[in-house]
């Protein structure tokens, strides 16, 4: 019997899992952004002493994991599972990090939705009683993503105004059955939604319908009012995607205009940093949540958060074959204990 399931797509936890510690690492550009004071580590060199961008990303993930475990006052050997993924083919960053960390590993591909995908699955494992401590983490790297999905770095081309900037960064969260920290009350798992957008320079518009669908489902399933949350935060929709999401959600009768924002708009100063529509990538919602949001929750400046990481599930092959971009979004409801 699925006794913890409510509505059609939501799980309500009996003994809500606790996020006992997080950490975040970002690259130099993100470190110059408006959230710089919230990140644990800001790299001076985005190659991170490695010989390729891919290895640099993997190292970022690995070191962020170690720091998150430390911040949660736990040992690496306490971690019973690792849920992780990234944007690279065959999850190079996550698999290579897992090789060094030696934690039982589930590799996930959810494109940029990986932060809440890993948190959702991790929380279910904890509440299900299958583990006491695990780590959920993800990363992205501007240079490794750029060379896999677009053009060589030094190639001259003009970025479109709707294009987003892949965040160089990694975020890790330790999820535990006992301890101090905000708890995960609900997770709403999203469906793949695709309204036919094919332009890979406009991923915000491609993912917005999925985000809106998951947000609406979350409120339908839980019956919570939209003003229950201090902040509803999507992953990396950027300026255009955010506007579309607001309107699509409003269209379904839920008003989130007052308490909704997007991580992609928080991480960069789009005007000054020339990042056009905003940040993107797995690292976007991961670093904003594990850095900014978690620290503000610990200070109790924010108490109730709905985090919805958003992913664009296209591949280089699917785009070249002219297919549209399927979107996905998973919501995780994170609440301060006793609030």
């Amino acid at each position: 019997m699925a006794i913890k399931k409510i509505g059609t797509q939501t799980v309500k936890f009996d003994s809500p899992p606790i996020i006992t510690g997080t950490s975040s690492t970002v690259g130099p550009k993100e470190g110059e952004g408006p959230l710089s004071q919230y990140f644990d580590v800001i790299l001076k060199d985005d190659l991170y002493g490695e010989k390729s961008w891919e290895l640099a990303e993997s190292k970022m993930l690995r070191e962020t994991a170690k720091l998150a475990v430390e911040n949660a006052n736990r040992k690496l050997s306490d971690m019973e599972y690792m849920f992780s993924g990234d944007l690279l083919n065959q999850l190079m960053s996550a698999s290579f990090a897992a090789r060094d960390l030696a934690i039982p590993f589930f590799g996930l591909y959810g494109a940029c939705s990986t932060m809440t995908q890993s948190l959702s699955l991790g929380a279910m494992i904890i509440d299900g009683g299958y583990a006491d401590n695990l780590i959920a983490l993800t990363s992205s790297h501007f240079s490794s993503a750029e060379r896999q999905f677009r053009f060589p770095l030094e190639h001259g081309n003009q970025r479109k105004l709707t294009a987003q900037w892949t965040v160089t960064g990694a975020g890790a969260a330790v999820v535990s059955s006992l301890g101090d920290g905000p708890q995960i009350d609900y997770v709403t798992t999203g469906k793949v939604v695709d309204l036919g957008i094919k332009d890979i320079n406009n991923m915000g518009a491609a993912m917005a319908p999925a985000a809106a669908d998951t947000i609406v489902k979350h409120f339908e399933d839980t019956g919570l009012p939209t003003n229950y949350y201090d902040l509803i935060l999507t992953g990396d929709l950027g300026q255009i995607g955010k506007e579309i999401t607001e309107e699509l959600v409003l269209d379904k009768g839920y008003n989130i205009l007052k308490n909704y924002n997007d991580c992609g708009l928080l991480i960069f100063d789009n005007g000054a940093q020339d990042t056009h529509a905003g940040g993107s990538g797995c690292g976007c919602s991961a670093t904003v949540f594990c850095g900014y949001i978690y620290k503000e929750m610990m200070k109790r400046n924010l108490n109730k958060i709905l985090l919805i990481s958003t992913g664009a599930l296209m591949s280089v092959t699917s785009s070249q074959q002219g297919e549209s971009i399927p979107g996905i979004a998973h919501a995780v409801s994170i609440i301060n204990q006793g609030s």
Partner: protein
Amino acid sequence: MKKQITRISKEKEYEEYVNKKVPKPAYLKNSLWAFLVGGIICTIAQFILNILRNSGLNKTDANTVTVIIMVFLGAFLTGLGIYDKITQKAGAGAIVPISGFANSIVSPAMEFKREGYVLGIGAKLFSVAGPVLVYGFGSSVILGLLYYFFTR
């Protein structure tokens, strides 16, 4: 079958809705930048050509040497990480001249060096410029044939 039709109309509706949201590029500003930078690149090339002609090279040789120098400059600025920044501002103004062609060959060479000389540089060198070469050569063959058959 009916479902299919509603889906397509919904997609069309959404596309129109999204297009209204997409900000328009600053056409005038972009064109001015392209004009200025493209003009400067061509002026530099003309300057080099004049010097070469004045130093006694014949027209064909002077043209060849000018192209070699412009390709070198494009490659050099790509290596220094400057050319992509110029293009970001100037668009076609920096892509269309032959220095832009050099950029499209040198940038993958730099990027894929880590995959080795054969599977990296060797295989990827023309990943950006390849289509231009294929269709450039292809159309010149067709034009050559048309010229051969119809102008004699």
